[in-house]
């Protein structure tokens, strides 16, 4: 059974929009991080969908790569946020205001 390409594109664009909205609206840095992950996963869904549409394995292979990269990114990001929490006792993005002109 084939799912039409349009359905998957609607799913991936809504994922991306939800992620982008989360990045803009959420105050907690961890939530921002999760929203970024949503956006990355939206791209991965796209990649897999197009890959099966064209019958070309490259998209799926790259989706795997990109999942790995996203995991590495989260690892570094969480470490930075942990350290921020240790120094400032907060991960609220509004309180990150030492550096400004």
């Amino acid at each position, binding site marked *: 059974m084939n799912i039409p390409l349009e359905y998957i594109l609607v799913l991936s664009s809504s994922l991306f929009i939800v992620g982008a909205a989360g990045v803009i609206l959420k105050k907690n*840095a961890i939530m921002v991080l999760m929203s970024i992950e949503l956006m990355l996963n939206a791209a991965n869904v796209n990649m897999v969908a197009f890959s099966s549409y064209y019958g070309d394995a490259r998209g799926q292979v790259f989706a795997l790569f990109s999942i790995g990269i996203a995991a590495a*990114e989260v690892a570094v990001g969480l470490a930075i946020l942990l350290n921020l929490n240790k120094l400032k006792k907060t991960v609220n993005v509004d309180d990150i205001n030492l550096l400004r002109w």
Partner: protein
Amino acid sequence: MDYSALYPEIILALFAIAIPAVGMMLKDSKFLAAVSLAGVGLAMLAVFMYFYEGLGAVVFDNGLLVLDDFSGLFMMVFLAVAFVVILASGKFIEGEKHASEYYSLILLATVGMMLVAASTDLFVLYIGIEITSISSYALVAFRKKDIKGTEAATKYFIFGGISSAFTLFGISLVYGITGTTSFEGIGAAVGSLVEFKEMIWLALVMVIVGFGFKVAVVPFHAWAPDVYEGAPSTITAMLAAGSKKMGLVAMFKFFLIAMLAIKADWEMVIAIMAILTMTVGNLAALNQTSIKRMLAYSSIAQAGYILIAIAVGTEFALTGGIFHILTHAFMKGGAFIIVATLAVVAIGERISDYKGLAKRSNFMAFSMTILLFSLAGIPPLAGFASKVVLFSSPIQGGVAGAEWLIWLSVAAIINSAISLYYYARVVKYMYVDELDEDVPVAKLKLPKSMMAAVAICVIAVIGIGLYPEYFIQLCQDAARALLA
């Protein structure tokens, strides 16, 4: 499989893996710096051998990566930046924990930049960008007890994450629209699109936003001054001279190879962004009190100049763009390393801290003057030579029906004039103003390795300025290799 196109990256990656192991036994920062320098030197030798043997383009694995005049030149630039930064770091991070990880990450970031320069495929390009980005997030956060550094790293990480999400989504759309990921394949496909003609617009917007964040193009530049100010100064040098240039290389590849066929659709957007970027960068730099912030805004402005090369898109313009990237790497890298060197002897990062510097260290004041004047574009320094080529390209361009491109030159020249004000202000502080009364007039004792790093940048700037023909030739070969 023939790995000869990958030798420089392989050498550097091996050193990056080996350094933490060496660091288990010997924790001395200077020793680890020497080992990393050896790695960078070997990689440089590998690139040099390639140029020396004149092999033409060496392709890896049916065209995922290529070593040609373009990627070879940029590998040299990135390796030179890494060399200077590591040379300065030996003393700069002395006595801090995790020195081995620091050097390992610098080398890995450089490997990522080199992969971007060598990539001929969108996926490889993305992986290269991410390797550099993830390493530099960790490097910005290197001083764990430093609250400013941690804050800068948080901002860098969040904006970098948004950037890569947009880039990846854009890449996935490009893949979906054209069914291929190699730049040449995309370039051939976008010219004759029938099915998804409007979709390519969405993909372009996504990629422009993604790369815009990476390069800190206005209106996506807000993070850059904060991050450049908060990061350790040597790392700032690497971000400004290396990873920002990587973003520009990625833009060259994406726009001038993959999207060249629909240039009429995006050249106006890039041109407007170029003018906005240089203007906002220069105006914001005018009244900065922190030298790192001032240099950060000046970096933004310089990225605006380089965008001219993409908007014009001729071989001549690309030559100028590549040449300006080359000279800017030395000018900005050197300037940030001077800030780092002076920080070692407890001179602060406010511009007013540089008052009377010439009396305390003639060499530092002289070097800073040369680098800043070169950034402003005063002959006979390197910045002048590259700006001449770059700014004359819209006029000389020979792009039919795009006479409005001349306004790019006009804007860039006006901006250069504005920028002279804030560069000259620092020089005035260093040479004309008196020292504050509570500061002793004694000569500064500066670490030799860091002075050597600064000296390399100054010599490069003067040398390129005096003999630009040879370097213009190199850049022209590179531009030809990219556009061919």
